């Protein structure tokens, strides 16, 4: 081999290496999604430790020195719009509720669930204060708002089913959460299904009366949500994903600490829903359990049940393998590294505590 050829080959290898390194380089921006917006479309939300991380700018701080921007998009049209954004490669990471996530996965989206962001989710049914409706059975034939294609639809179908009804027995009006609240105020609808604190806010505003709350309803399983990562993004940037999960686990630990409860609710109130509405939404719930980032057997089981129910209600036509989809490596790493393995109670598939949290409840 002559020297020129050798030099040329060396150069080519070097160039390829440089190119390879460039490919492995960090992204310039992390595109982070969230289903729903704050009141009036403001870019803040409540109800999860991810919402707290957003309000406190924790991810922004983590990636500042690397020159990586965190670009938040709050999707008014929630899960269905997030699936479209994933399909069009416009999103890297997002929080997502069970039904939409399952629909996306069944539709062939390459995603991974890397972190639990909520389980045992509570659903409410709200009617105008002077409405004669007293129970789920009374909803028969009434105009009821629910947000199709989101976790609300699955929750609503489960609640209706537990009461011997189905979607066909009510007149469904498909509306997003904020639109449904406005329609309730103008009495264009007779009732709405909603998740989270909005129901309590409606009560405070005098436009709603809660006739059903999922708290303590043992017949109906609560909804789940998780942190979904785009499969290609995860493959190209595993360290970035690990750092995102690290930051969020830290946020979860801070959020679950009872001493920070007030500050947590204040940060959620940036969304426009009041501090007191969030407080009463959490009242009577195992707050540490619903703010746990841990992927345990109960979390997996909740998703498996969701897949089975979404299929039974005919919201998807293809099956989804939950075990292939949920990847707990990142969160397990983070818990280990931060010494938080015993910070949250782990639950078995039956929902009973397997390993009780080392943190004493006050």
């Amino acid at each position: 081999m002559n020297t020129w050829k050798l030099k040329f080959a060396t150069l080519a290898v070097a160039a390829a290496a440089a190119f390879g390194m460039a490919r492995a380089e960090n992204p310039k921006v992390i595109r982070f999604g969230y289903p729903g917006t704050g009141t009036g479309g403001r870019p803040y939300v409540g109800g999860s430790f991810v919402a707290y991380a957003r309000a406190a700018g924790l991810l922004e701080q983590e990636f500042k020195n690397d020159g990586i921007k965190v670009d938040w998009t709050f999707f008014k049209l929630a899960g269905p719009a997030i699936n479209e954004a994933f399909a069009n490669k416009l999103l890297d990471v997002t929080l997502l509720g069970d039904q939409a996530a399952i629909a996306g996965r069944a539709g062939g989206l390459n995603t991974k669930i890397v972190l639990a962001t909520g389980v045992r989710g509570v659903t409410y049914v709200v009617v105008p204060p002077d409405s004669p409706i007293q129970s789920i059975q009374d909803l028969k034939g009434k105009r009821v708002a629910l947000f199709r294609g989101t976790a609300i639809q699955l929750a609503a179908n489960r609640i209706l089913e537990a009461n011997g009804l189905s979607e066909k027995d009510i007149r469904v009006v498909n509306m997003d959460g904020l639109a449904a609240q406005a329609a309730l105020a103008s009495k264009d609808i007779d009732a709405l299904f909603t998740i989270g604190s909005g129901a309590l806010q409606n009560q405070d505003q005098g436009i709603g009366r809660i006739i059903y709350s999922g708290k303590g309803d043992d017949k109906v399983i609560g909804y789940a949500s998780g942190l979904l990562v785009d499969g290609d993004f995860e493959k190209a940037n595993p360290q970035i994903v690990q750092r995102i999960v690290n930051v969020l686990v830290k946020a979860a630990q801070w959020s679950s600490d009872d001493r920070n409860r007030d500050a947590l609710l204040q940060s959620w109130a940036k969304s426009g829903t009041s501090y007191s509405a969030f407080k009463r939404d959490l009242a009577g719930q195992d707050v540490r359990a619903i703010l746990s980032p841990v992927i345990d057997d109960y979390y997996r089981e909740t998703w498996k049940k969701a897949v089975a129910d979404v299929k039974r209600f005919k919201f998807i036509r293809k099956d989804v393998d939950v075990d292939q989809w949920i990847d707990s490596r990142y969160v397990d790493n983070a818990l280990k590294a931060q010494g938080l393995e015993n910070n949250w109670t782990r639950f078995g598939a039956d929902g009973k505590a397997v390993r009780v949290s080392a943190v004493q409840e006050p």
Partner: protein
Amino acid sequence: MSRSALASGSSIRFSPRPFAAGRAPAPVRILAGLVLPSALLLLWHNASTRGWAPPQILPAPAVAWSSFLDLLASGDLRTHVQASLIRVLISFALGSAAGLALGLAMGLSRRLDDLFGAVFHGINQVPTLGWLPVLIVVVGINDRLTHILIAQAVFVSVAINTQRGIRQVPERLVEVARAYRLSRTQSLRKVVLPAAVPQIFTGIRFGLANGWASLVVVELLVGSEGLGYLMSWGRQAFQLDLVLVAIVAVGIIGWILDAGLARLEGTFTAWRTGEAAA
């Protein structure tokens, strides 16, 4: 004296098929009609197989086809088509009856035309769906909203074209009727209405096409049945193949409805073509 004697007395300028001569034989026409659909299908196929669009956003024709067969087998497609057709036919019947009545009145009476004409042509300028926000506030989101909106689309189009059709009956025809000393009812039945039929049918066909298209949009909002609902649900459920099946169904049914009306128009105006051939 026969109708044809009257008709042949004038040169009819608006034969329904002015360029009917020189049409190719049927097989050639059918083949020619398939060129563009095949090209579109090929484009669609390429777009999804070569990844011009994500497969979740633009499923391949084969995927849409199997969804179509699924919907057909489960009876879901029938339910949705039936719901949409019933909605549009009720509204169409109401809208076209009212439109014919008002159109005739405005066509025959200058005074009524002076009274309603300006408002009417103004209303005609507003796209059907422009009424949607106002109607939602007034009647709420329900089936009545669909009926009113579609009936309105048909009504305006039929009324205006009926009025125009009657106004545009050639003066010569009216003179002939007068020369034969036909009564007002006789000349209306034997001269004016037959001459106005093509224009009236234009109104009816345009109204139905407009109504069918609007129906689908209203169904995006209202109810849990119908092709429009199927489209919106397909998007909510991230099953874009359902959206595509619904789009094709809307297109084909709209085309069949229009072809049906064209046939009906043909039977109403058969005497004209008969004349042209003679």
